[in-house]
């Protein structure tokens, strides 16, 4: 990223504040994707501990049976739900489904692709992720 190119860079890509809920969804999608990838790698490492025998496996599993471990699992559940629901919305949009039809634009030019169907999809993904997080917390801390 050189000054010649004057790219906005990662800071600009990750800034969710200027372009509405669609840009927030874009940012959360990237964040949850990276989070799930990190969880996938950690999960493989965790399950590989079974090679250390039952004691080693139980010792490692005990690390996740803590309040911090439970919150971490809750976040993984929330990321999974958001990424799935928002991913379905994005996949449909990528196929041209629900993005509106071309028409002669009238001022003030409300973009049809940013319509209420997609906004409902984004808010649904966020709300369902929050519900899944709270349900996960209730199950893990309610033992």
């Amino acid at each position, binding site marked *: 990223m050189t*000054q010649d190119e004057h790219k*906005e860079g*990662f800071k600009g*890509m990750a800034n969710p504040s200027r*372009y509405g809920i*669609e840009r927030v*969804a874009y940012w959360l999608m990237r964040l949850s994707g990276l989070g799930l990838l990190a969880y996938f790698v950690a999960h493989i490492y965790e399950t590989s501990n079974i090679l250390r025998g039952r004691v080693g496996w139980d010792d490692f599993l005990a690390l996740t049976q803590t309040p911090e471990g439970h919150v971490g699992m809750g976040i993984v559940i929330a990321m999974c739900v958001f990424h799935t629901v928002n991913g379905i919305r*994005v996949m449909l949009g990528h*196929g041209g489904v629900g993005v509106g039809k071309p028409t002669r634009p009238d001022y003030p030019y409300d*973009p049809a692709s940013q319509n209420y169907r997609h906004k409902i999809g984004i808010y649904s993904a966020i709300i369902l992720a929050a519900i899944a997080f709270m349900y996960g917390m209730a199950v893990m801390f309610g033992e």
Partner: protein
Amino acid sequence: MAQVSDVADNQPPQTKTLRIARFNPEKDNEKQFVEFSVPVEKWTTVLETILDVKQHHDHSVAVRYSCRQATCGSCGMIINGKPRLACFTKVSELDSDVVTVEPMNNFPIIRDLAVKFERLFDTHHKIKPYLDREDTELESDAKEFLQSPEELEKYIQFANCIKCGLCNSACPTMATDSSFVGPQALAQAYRYVADSRDKGKDSRLKIIDDSHGIWRCHFAGSCSQVCPKGVDPAMGIQLLRGYMLGFRS
């Protein structure tokens, strides 16, 4: 007219602060902001405040402009954090005492607020922005290519593009990928693919079917939110991808 004049007489112009990013790539290492006090009426545009600075304070401020009516696409810049046309943005609608203007992101800076458009024009040219077919309607004995109003509606929205570059400046993929074709060119690819007179659909889809082409769009929609002409590039790109995925024919 008398009423307009009365209102103007009763309300003296306000003074606002205009912060202009100054940068000369040949001399400077980073942008520096210079502040000016400018008079502002209810109808004053950001471009008019910049021209006021050039006329009364510092004529060396570099800015590109021409039509002053959102038609030429020359005066795109970052105004209070978002890409906008300076001639199409009234200071009063920004609802701020400080107006900050910077050069558009994702475009190399020539100086101050003026940026290079070569890459945008290159990518625009790359997708063949013309009717691609063997025959022509320009010869004297040729018939014009007929088109129904319904066929026109399929692409006329995308023909409004003025190549101002605001969509490319707002795009999060453009922010990190130097090779990405960009929303402007992709929307124009759709404009010609959807045109019933065009015969170059397959070759055009082949051009954008690239790792830095249409697949790098993640439907953030920021391009459509900043378009000053209602082109909605995000819609065009998704509809275009619909052709490639087999959702449309």
